[in-house]
Structure formats: structure tokens, C-alpha cells
């Protein structure tokens, strides 16, 4: 057993887990955060994507012990109370989901993608960057639309903030 402690969605958590416990199982079964999904369990599908220290990672391929000491954000940590995160709002607006199983991973991947491309995104980049996330319903078209729309919304909001700061 290992003592692990980390900050999950802004809340300090700790506990004893078997060393072989995967981060996704720690989140789902120990913390009850079942928004993070296990899809393929073979590191291909990206349904389990969370942010670790600000970067998108596959929580099904990381041990909770490896993640100890880090800061984790899951799909539950994105919205600000009742206000959806711009990426969540865009997925809703553009119907970027059908069954919704891949959606948490898609949204966590998209927020990371937008962070890494402050210069903006184009369709080809979004499609290439979604390499690690599989959707078996929609054919990606509306997912790509949603990510592009969210990227634009967030760029505008970012500029607004920068002006205020100046």
C-alpha cells in the first residue's frame, strides 16, 4: 500500500491505495468522481483524459502513486458552479456528442489543446490533435466544430482579460 496525496479539482485529498491502483480508479472508486471514464483500457481511446499539473494525460495509464503530489483536474472541475466552461458550452451548442461516453475525455483534451495553441486552431490541427481520443458515434464532425468554436470564444475572452489587465 502507498499513501498518496494530491489536489483534485482544487481540493486536497489523500488516502492509502494499493500500489497498482490506476489514477482513473483512484478518481472513480476512491473519490467518487465518475465523470472520468474507462473506455478501451488499452491507452487508445482517451475517455480517461484528465489534466495532471496542467497537461492532458491518460489516467488509465498512470498509477495513483505516480500522480501523488500533483494537481489533477477532471471533467467535474471545469465548470464554474452552474456556468459551463466555454468548451463544455461549445459541445452543448454544437451537439458535439451523441452517447456522451467519450465526451469527458474529449473536453479535457480540447481544453488542453486550446491552451497549447494560443495562436488559434484550424480544422486540420484539431483533427490531428484529436489523435488520442476516439468517438464511436458522431464521426467527429461536430466535435471539431465545438473545439474550433470554443477556441475562438476563449481567445476573445482572453483578449478581454488582457485589456483589463493593461
Amino acid at each position, binding site marked *: 500500500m502507498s499513501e498518496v496525496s494530491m489536489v483534485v479539482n482544487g481540493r486536497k485529498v489523500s488516502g492509502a491505495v494499493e*500500489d497498482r491502483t490506476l489514477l482513473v480508479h483512484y478518481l472513480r472508486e476512491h473519490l467518487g468522481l465518475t465523470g472520468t471514464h474507462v473506455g478501451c483500457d488499452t*491507452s487508445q481511446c482517451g475517455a480517461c483524459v484528465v489534466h495532471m499539473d496542467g497537461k492532458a494525460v491518460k489516467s488509465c*495509464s498512470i498509477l495513483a502513486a*505516480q500522480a501523488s503530489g500533483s494537481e489533477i483536474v477532471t471533467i467535474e472541475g471545469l465548470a464554474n458552479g452552474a456556468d459551463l466552461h466555454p468548451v463544455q458550452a461549445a459541445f452543448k451548442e454544437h451537439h458535439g456528442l451523441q452517447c456522451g461516453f467519450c465526451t469527458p475525455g474529449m473536453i479535457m483534451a480540447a481544453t*488542453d*489543446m486550446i491552451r497549447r495553441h494560443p495562436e488559434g486552431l484550424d480544422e486540420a490541427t484539431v483533427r490531428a490533435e484529436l*489523435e488520442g481520443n476516439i468517438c464511436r458515434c458522431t464521426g467527429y464532425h461536430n466535435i471539431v466544430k465545438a473545439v474550433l468554436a470554443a477556441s475562438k470564444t476563449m481567445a476573445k475572452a482572453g483578449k478581454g482579460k488582457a485589456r483589463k489587465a493593461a
Partner: protein
Amino acid sequence: MYQTTYHRAASVSDAVKHLKKSDDAKLVSGGMTLIPAMKTRLAAPADLVDLRHIPEMRGIAVSGKTVTIGAATTHAEVATDARIAKACPALSHLASHIGDPHVRHMGTIGGSIANNDPAADYPAAMLALDAIIVTNKRETPAGKFFKGLFETALKEDEIITAVTFTVPAKSGYEKFPNPASRYAMTGVFVAKGKDGVRAAVTGAGEDGVFRSGEIEAALSKKFEPAALEGVSVPSDDLMTDIHASAEYRANLVVVMAKRAVVRANA
């Protein structure tokens, strides 16, 4: 996954201590190969020694014509580093095409090289760049480091700490990714340095990464894609699997080499 005991190493010497204490320990860095292998019980180490938090193994340094990359540096860090992009854009390109963005945030150059998967990208770069693999014990040229499928010159208790290479005049990498796994079905890294042209092939050889004498001879005459017209590579020691025959891969070696040269000359 079978039971395992996790140890977080604070330094290279601390990692060695953990290795020596266990009969059956494995090093984990990003874990993007090892953890999935443990989940399917293909690997079942009694102890895991985590190298990801060792400061001395992280980071990139470019000093004059020498590039040094710490073994625990992630693919994403290599792919986005401005100094690497300037010194060796082929390596940035290669790193930005390993796996997917989430895998690149965890996977490390040292892990890729130590694992020596026959379809991994980094071994081809190391061999073509004539890189030196630095461990806690010695420095080994890439040509003597990669020994075969998943086999390297690494001894017990030996840990890759960094890789270092001289900036080539020109270099390029192109791979033909498997449409499902995105591993290279064949990838070729070409580098033109002061000692001539080196071309290393991954994803194709039965014994893992290798240098292609045919490609090197042709490109030594003229470092242009046209120099590879009519060149053929023997298929004798190439892989045949459900994805491609040895003959198909032999053809891919020449095609990927041409594309790599186009990229190198761009």
C-alpha cells in the same frame, strides 16, 4: 495488473539503490509502454522505480554544436523546445509525431530508447545522429547500444541519464504510420554530418533499428531525393506481419528515405 511496489527515486543514485535492493525491479519514467504492459500482465515487476521526479535527468541544453537531452525529458518538451527546433528540426518533427498529445506529455526519450521497440521513432534518430547514450556508468555510441528487438547494451543497475549529439548540417525524418496504432510501419531518419551521411531505419528490421548501407551510399554521392531513384534495399532481414510483407517494407524504406531527404533539404 499484478501487485507491485512503487518507489519514487529522488536521484539517480537513489534509483540505483532501489534497483539493487530488488530481485525484480523495473524502471518507470513516463510509463506509456510499461504501465499498459503491466495492465495486460505482459510485464509484472515486483518493484517499480519511478525516475520522473529526478531533476538531474530532466531538461535540454544546447551548447555550441552539442545538444544534450535529459533522459526523463518528455516527447512534448522535445517537440516544443525552441532550441531543438533550431538545432535539429527533424528531431522536433519526430517527437511531435509519437503517439498522441496525452502520451507525449508523459513518454520520455530515455524510456523510448531503453525499451528499444522495433517500431519506435527515437532509436532511428539516435542511430542516424550518431548520438551518445549517457548512463550512470558510461557513454555508449548509439551504434553499439541498440542490440535487437527490445534489447540494448544496458546492464543491470544501469540507467540512461541523457543523450547527446552533434548538430548535423541537415537531417530529416519521415515515417509511414500504421493506420491503427500509429507506430512506424517503416520510418527513416537521414542525417548529413561532417563524417558523411547516415540513414537509420525503424519499424522494418527483424532485429529492430538498423542503418541502411544502400541509402547511405546513394545519398553520399548526392544528398537529393533523385539520388535514390532506382535504389533498392534487400528484404531479407525485414519484418513480415499482418500489416505488410518484407518486400513492401523494403520499398517503403526507399520511399520514406526520399521524403526524409526532401524534408531535410526544405
